[in-house]
Structure formats: C-alpha cells, structure tokens
C-alpha cells in the first residue's frame, strides 16, 4: 500500500511539472492553433536564466536561500516571458495563416534556443546549487519533501492564477474571444497581436517557473532538457482537451501518475508505450479529450 502511495506522490510531482508546461501549450494552441515546438525550450531557458541569477547573486554575496530563490524565480519568469513574446513576434506572427510553415518555424526556433544555450553555457549539464535538502514529513511510510510540497502547492496556485486571468479579466476575455473567432475579435476592437503576445508571455512565465524548480529539485539542467518534457507536456495538454486550461492541469497530473504507476507496476522501459496507448484510447473514446476542448473547428 505504501508503495502505491509513494508512486502516486512521485506521479503528482512530475505531473506538476507537466501541468505547468502543458498550460503554455494549451493556451497558445487555443488561440492560434500552433503546436509551439519551442515551448519546451523556453522551459529550459527559464532554468538557465535562474542558474545565472543564482550565480550572480552568489557573486554579490547574497546568502539567504529564500531570497535568492525568489529573485531567481522573478528574474527568470520576467526575462523568459519576454523571450517567449519575442519568439512569437519574430518567428510566428508573420506566419499565422500558414499552418504548416509556422510549425517549421517553431522547429527552427526550438533548435535556435537549444543550441544558443549550448554555446552560451555548456554542452554538458550544469548543476544547480543544492539549496533545499530532502527533509520533509513522512506519513504511512511515504517520504515527501517540503520541496515537493512547495512544487505542488505553488503549481496549483499559479494555475489558479492563470484560470483567474483567463476567466475574470478583460485581457483574458480577449484571449477567449480570439480563441473563438479572431476576425470577430478584431472587429470588436481587440488588439490581436498584443493579446497573443500576452498569451505567450503567460505561458512562458509558467514554463520558466517550472524550469527553475526543476533545477532546484533535480539539481540538473542541460540544453536539451526541454525536448522530452515538452513532448510529454503537449501530450498531457491533448489528454486533458487541447485549449482547455483546467484540462491541461488535469492532463498533466494524470500523465504523471499514469507514468509512475506504469513504471512501478508494469515495466520501466515500457511506461511511455503505456502512456501513449492510454492517450490513444482516451481520444478514441472521448475525441475531445478528458475535459473537452475549447477550440472551435475552423473551416
């Protein structure tokens, strides 16, 4: 029993990361129908910017782990958020109506980000400062660390913030309007480009938050770290219903738990096959994803 609980805890942890990144995919897809291949690499950039911030603060002899972490998060989210909008402006905006060409541009952006990180930092992986140990409460034989709890709680808080922004603010309404019909929204006075930029900004801040937390929790960052997790997060977004914000969260956690249970009870090397098989099954039975999609079919 405790093994099962431990696996669920494991799954929720990785699921939180998936969910944070999946939100960026789902928001962008909801608005402009683009699978943003570069989004996983934004997550990586966030981790590296955080790393540099820690380094800089260390040089300035700032000691407190809480202060440095807060600063690293703020700096990373701000800068990486802006980078996300820059990528949109440069690589995506001119191609919004060319569905396949914009995909290639996204792939190009992804490669550019990855190999820029390689050249600026290192081809090898970098190690984050070991700031927070693994101390934590343990119940029913399951070990949880405070850091894990922090990750889970802060992810939920951030996702709630996104939900709030999208559903309770004017900009959020503009985002939803764009998702339904871009031309009508423009006619209603929505500054399409600015709203899309903001969407990219939001998604990128979440991804970079996940990036810094990855560095803190796993201690390891590398220039290709965004590739695999980006794929998984996109899968999670689709699982929950693409374009659906709560769906991305549900999809993320579900995928994390699914993977954990598959690895724990079936086989580690087959877990991704299980995850994809379940995804395909879910989509066949519920073609709109678990919570249903929020993107109108465009004719």
């Amino acid at each position, binding site marked *: 029993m405790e*093994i099962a609980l431990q696996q669920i805890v494991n799954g929720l*942890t990785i699921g939180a990361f998936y969910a944070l990144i999946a939100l960026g995919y789902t928001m962008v897809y909801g608005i402009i129908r683009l699978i943003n291949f570069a989004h996983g690499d934004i997550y990586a950039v966030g981790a590296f910017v955080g790393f540099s911030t820690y380094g800089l603060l260390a040089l300035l002899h700032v000691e407190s782990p809480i202060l440095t972490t807060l600063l690293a998060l703020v700096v990373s989210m701000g800068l990486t958020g802006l980078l996300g909008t820059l990528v949109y402006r440069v690589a995506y905006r001119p191609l919004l109506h060319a569905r396949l060409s914009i995909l290639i541009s996204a792939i190009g952006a992804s490669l550019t980000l990855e190999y820029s990180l*390689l050249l600026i930092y290192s*081809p090898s992986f970098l190690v984050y400062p070991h700031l927070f140990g693994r101390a934590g409460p343990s119940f029913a034989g399951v070990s949880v660390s405070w850091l894990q709890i922090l990750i889970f709680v802060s992810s939920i808080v951030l996702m709630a913030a996104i939900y709030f922004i999208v559903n309770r603010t004017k900009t959020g309404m503009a985002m939803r309007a764009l998702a339904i019909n871009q031309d009508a929204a423009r006619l209603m006075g929505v500054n399409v480009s600015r709203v899309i930029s903001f969407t990219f900004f939001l998604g990128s801040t979440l991804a970079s938050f996940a990036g810094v937390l990855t560095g803190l929790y796993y*201690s*390891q960052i590398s220039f290709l*770290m965004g590739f*695999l997790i980006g794929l998984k997060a996109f899968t999670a977004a689709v699982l929950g219903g693409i374009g659906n914000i709560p769906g991305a969260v549900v999809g993320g956690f579900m995928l994390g738990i699914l993977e954990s249970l598959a690895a*724990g009870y079936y086989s580690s090397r087959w877990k991704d096959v299980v995850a994809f098989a379940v995804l395909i099954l879910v989509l066949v039975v519920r073609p709109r994803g678990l919570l249903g999609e929020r993107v109108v079919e465009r004719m």
Partner: protein
Amino acid sequence: MRNVFAVATLLVFLITGMVPGVGAQGATIKIGVPVPLSGGNAKMGTDIVQAATMAADEQNAKGGVLGRKLEIVSFDDACDAQQAVTAAHKLVDAGVAAVAGGYCSSAAIPASAVYHDAGVAFVADASSNPKLTDQGFENVFRVIGRDDQQGPYAAGFMTKDLHAKKVAIIHDNTLYAKGLATATQDALKKMMGVQVVFFDAITPGEKDFSATLTKVKSLNPDVTYFTGYYPEGGLVCKQFKDLGVSGKLMAGDANNDPTFIKECGAASTGVYITSTPLPQDQGTAKAFISRYTGRWKQDPGPYSALEYDSVGVVINAMQRAKSADRAAIIKALQATSAYSGATGKITFDKKGDRVQVLYITYIIKGDKFVPTGM
C-alpha cells in the same frame, strides 16, 4: 525577384559547401576524429577532440611524423548511425591516413564497416561494446576495454566484496548500457547464492526516476548497479538516496566523471564505480593531465586520455612502418606491443582488443573517486 535570389543563393551555398573536404593527401598527414559534437553527448566529443589536437600538436612540435605535420580532421557523428556513416565517408574522401576516435558504440559499429571497406585503420577510444571488434575486421582496434570484461568484473566485486545476494540492474536501453548490464547479469547468473531481482531500463533524457527506484526499493536489493551514462547516473544517485533505497549503489564506467559527484552532492559518498583506472591514478597519466589542464583550462574528460593514446598509437604505428600509407598503418597497428601510453601499456590482440585491461572499483569519498583496496 526575391524567389530567384533566394534559390540562387541556396544553390551557391550548397555547391560551395559540398566541394571542400574532397582532396587527396597533401603535405599534412590527416587523422580523422569522428565524435558527437551536437546533441546530448557533445561535451564528450569536445573532450575527445581536444585530447586528439593536443596529441597532434605535441608531435608536430617534435617535427611531426616522417617530416610531415599532423592534422586532426574531426566531423560530427551526432551519436547517430546514419550520420556516423556519412562522416566516415567524408573522412575517407578527405584522405585521412587513419581514424582515431568515436564515442557511441551505436555510431562506431556501422561506421567501422565503411572504414573496413576503405582500408582505413579505426582505433576506437571509447566504444566498449564487444561487437565492434567481434565483427572480425582487421582494421579495427580498441584502446578501451570491453563491456563483456567489465560485466563479470562488476559481478565479482558485488558478490565477493559487497556480499550481495539480491542485485538490481538498471540500464538505459542504449547499446553500451544494455550491453554492460547484460554482461553483468549473465555473469551473476552463473554464480551461486545471488539473484538478479530487477533488470529494466530508464529513459535517458528524463529526470525523474523515482517511480523506477520506488519499485527497486520494494525489492530490497543489496546492490543496485546502474550501467547508464553519468547525466542520468547523477540523478539516479540523488534519487536513490532521497527515496531511501536499501543497499549499496554501484555504477558503470560511464559514470566516472566528476560531474556525477557534483550532481549527486553529499549523497554520493559511499557510491561505487567500476572503471578502468582513471588518469589521476595512473602514474603514466599525471603528466598528461597537467598538460591538458594547462592547455585547455579545464579538466580532461573520462575519455581524453584514451583518445590521446589512440592518436599516439597511430603515430607510433606510422613511425614503425616508416609510412603514412593506410594499409601499412593497419599492419603496424596489429603489431603494436607494449606501447607506453597515458593509460598504461597498450598491446592489441588478434581481434584488435587491448590485452590486460584492468578494471578497478572506486568508492566516492568526499568529492573524489578513491580506489577501493582490491
């Protein structure tokens, strides 16, 4: 107009880019170094090229070989079979006298067929999968040991020194790691009183192995042996301790990099690593290390010394054969006997493997690899 311009530029670009690299042997003697320079293994590739360059430069400072200067020609094989084959063709066409390098076994093995067809010597510095030399190509040599030697050695250490009764083996489904894992499992199967309770793979590129390690924990192993590469190794080490898995953790020689210790932090103390002796523990390598750090301002990688010796062995062959002809180099390499390299004495057996490869086990203490008393 824009279209014409774009297409024309493209054409010019393509044509000019394809032409260089095709040439006969000129005044320099070229040695090919195919390694991953992009992708996840880029750092290893860079370490290897740096070592090769250093070896060539040192020889050039002594007047080169047969009065000609040495030139290192390195191409990216991206650890991919097809790219390795293409890189191999390119090196052959560039007129290399011999090839010394390679990292991933999965790239080296297909490429070795190309070198074989072209009659070019291929000295592998880091590809440890047995199949490379088992193919029976007379032009293939190997300076590193074989995984089917390391496996039985590891099995022996686990049972005799660590008294393991239950062993968990984790690999990462790459050619090298699975090969080492299988060799270890096979050796353990032949022994009495020990059982392999877990044999499965994690996915490289991922970071979270807690699900797999939780499963391992539930099996209560005495020793867990991780045979993958050090980026994942460091993560496995950290999560192994965090989850409180029982028993000792051991890792294969692809984890003999200091960043493994850095990644795992304080939890790495007490972890065992099987490996050929690291350069710092071989008297022969001390000079190499100081020259390398002096030149490149960074520590040598785990395979730098081996690459340095691979190039050295080729140079030595050329000197003995008094020729830079490809066939002559192969013949001379086959006759290599007790060449004094940074990694010790090198002699090749009939298959091209290095004889008397020594494996030892390190234990991590503080932040260093310390050899265990054998």
